[in-house]
């Protein structure tokens, strides 16, 4: 099931409020609309609620009020298990660091989303898990590392493996939470280029969160979280 099209809206937040504890609101966002296929840069200082926002968009957290619409479906109306399945099928996620399951090798880490979500696996269009993983790994320049123990990889290689895992099965949305802040400058640019080209090829919407504003010029659109977050 391909929910998105390149001209529509990928995600939309309407009057969303969120608090971890009662009375201590972290986020209050009147509106945020992200178009399909867009490359959005969200920035803000540490503690401004970036990870919380991503949790809401990925459906790990549930908004206290308002609507979080992803690919036409309101996540706040779903049951937790439905949100988990939805995330597994439609969203790829990259963390800042330590993205990989330590006891799986590179290949097994990359194919994990497809093994967990049957819907994500169907998106491979009949290609075998290994072939699909190899393809995306080749594109990201880690094709030779498939059977490596992840503990032996450099941080840059680990982040590419994480990118490959988020991209396998061409999810409509890729969310990256400070994926480059542990990389040096040269690797940073190269990593973002690779991520862009893969997302373009897959037609995925990319939401990229960082506090590093030097990356801003590379993106279609930039949003300052403190500006749209009325709770801040």
């Amino acid at each position: 099931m391909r929910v998105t099209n390149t001209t529509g809206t990928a995600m939309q937040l309407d009057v969303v409020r969120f608090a971890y504890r009662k009375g201590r609101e972290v986020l209050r966002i009147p509106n945020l609309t992200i178009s399909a296929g867009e490359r959005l840069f969200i920035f803000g200082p540490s503690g401004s609620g970036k990870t919380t926002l991503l949790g809401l968009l990925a459906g790990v957290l549930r908004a206290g009020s308002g609507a979080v619409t992803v690919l036409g479906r309101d996540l706040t109306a779903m049951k937790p298990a439905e949100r988990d399945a939805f995330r597994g099928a439609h969203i790829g996620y990259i963390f800042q660091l330590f993205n990989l399951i330590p006891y799986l090798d590179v290949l097994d880490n990359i194919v994990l989303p497809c093994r967990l979500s049957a819907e994500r696996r169907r998106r491979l269009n009949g290609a075998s898990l290994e072939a699909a993983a190899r393809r995306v790994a080749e594109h990201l320049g880690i094709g030779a590392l498939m059977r490596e123990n992840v503990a032996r990889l450099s941080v840059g290689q680990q982040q590419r493996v994480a990118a490959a895992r988020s991209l396998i099965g061409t999810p409509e949305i890729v969310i990256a939470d400070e994926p480059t802040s542990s990389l040096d400058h040269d690797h940073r640019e190269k990593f973002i280029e690779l991520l862009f080209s893969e997302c373009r090829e897959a037609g995925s919407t990319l939401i990229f969160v960082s506090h590093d504003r030097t990356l801003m010029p590379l993106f279609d659109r930039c949003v300052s979280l403190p500006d749209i977050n009325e709770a801040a």
Partner: protein
Amino acid sequence: MLLLSLAYQSLRHRKLTSALTVFSIALSVALLVGVELVRMGARESFSHTISQTDLIVGARGGSLQLLLYAVFRMGSATNNITYESYRQFAEHPAVEWTIPYSLGDSHRGFRVVGTTGDFYTRYRFRRDRRIEFTAGHAPENVFQVAIGSDVAAALGYRLGDAVTLTHGVSSGRGILDHEDRPFKICGILQRTATPVDRSLYVPLEGMEAMHLDWGDGAPPLPGEATPASKIHKEDMKIKQITAFLLRAKSRIDTLRLQREINTNEPEALMAVIPGVALGELWRTIGYAEDALAVVTVFVLVVGLLGMLVSLYTSLNERRREMAILRAIGAGPRNIVFLLVAESGLLALAGTVLGVALVYGLTWLSQPAVEHHFGLFLPVVAPTPTGWAYMSAVVVAGLLIGFVPAVKAYRNALADGLGIRL
């Protein structure tokens, strides 16, 4: 399936901790199953202390007392039975064989049993094992004695040694020794690992000959006793025995014979079925095995708690792993399943290893244990109790897995995709 394989790979990744946990569970399971096996073996061996005997017959009294003095050579009879009564049943048409016992004398703490040649040919223990000799043969003359293996080992006797029997039961030197009529050792019995080993065996006539010329329970005055050289087996007239073992021609006759013996007139006799009496005795001394079982259950609890500790302490370092799994679409329930599967796998592996361990050890030590302790440890499929123990360990492992799993579930909900290092 994916989560099970993840659980397996995660355990493999933490090889040392997993191996230690599996090993500690295996040891507790081995102990639990081993104790059950020894318990079974002990009960089995105990109930086969005497075999193929349908009835034990003695003067009327307590059935336990009869069992104790006739089989275990403990305590003593309050009354003897006349030789006539014995012959009456020995020649009974429904009786296949009998073995008479005449008790009451001892030698340095070991009981002396007067019996006949039937003891050496008919007596059975541990289902179908019979009396055999490591040296010599069964007594043929009045003043010959065959000794059990414990007697031979404890007193260092060899064939041809002369022994003096003591009137009554006492350890060490008795007050009234039959010094004038010593017995010569003609045979040493092979070890049976039953009370048979702890006795000396003389012919019924020998028992009678010792007490020849005695009157009113006192020895004859010096000079009045018949010299041993003038005593011949065929001249001895047996007046009484203490008890006898009886084998019926058919098992169906046993109960009828028992009733007949119990209602015998005029002499008051009593017959007990050894299996029943042994079972009663076992129940009275069986508390020890319950205590042992309780201890092993505690050992098992400690083993499982060890697993709980190792899983629980690993949770903090695994919070990242849980966040990653959440990010790729795993729900909190999947996280719970993963951890429960891990502890389940550990418990299962521990149980399998433990059972293998106990069966391997049993198989290896079986001959030695049987020889030294008279304990036959059967290498058979686990009993229903054994299976119940094993399943209980795995189920307990799964249940214990819920403790770290619920903690991980809470972590997963609280952490979300947040980075907690």
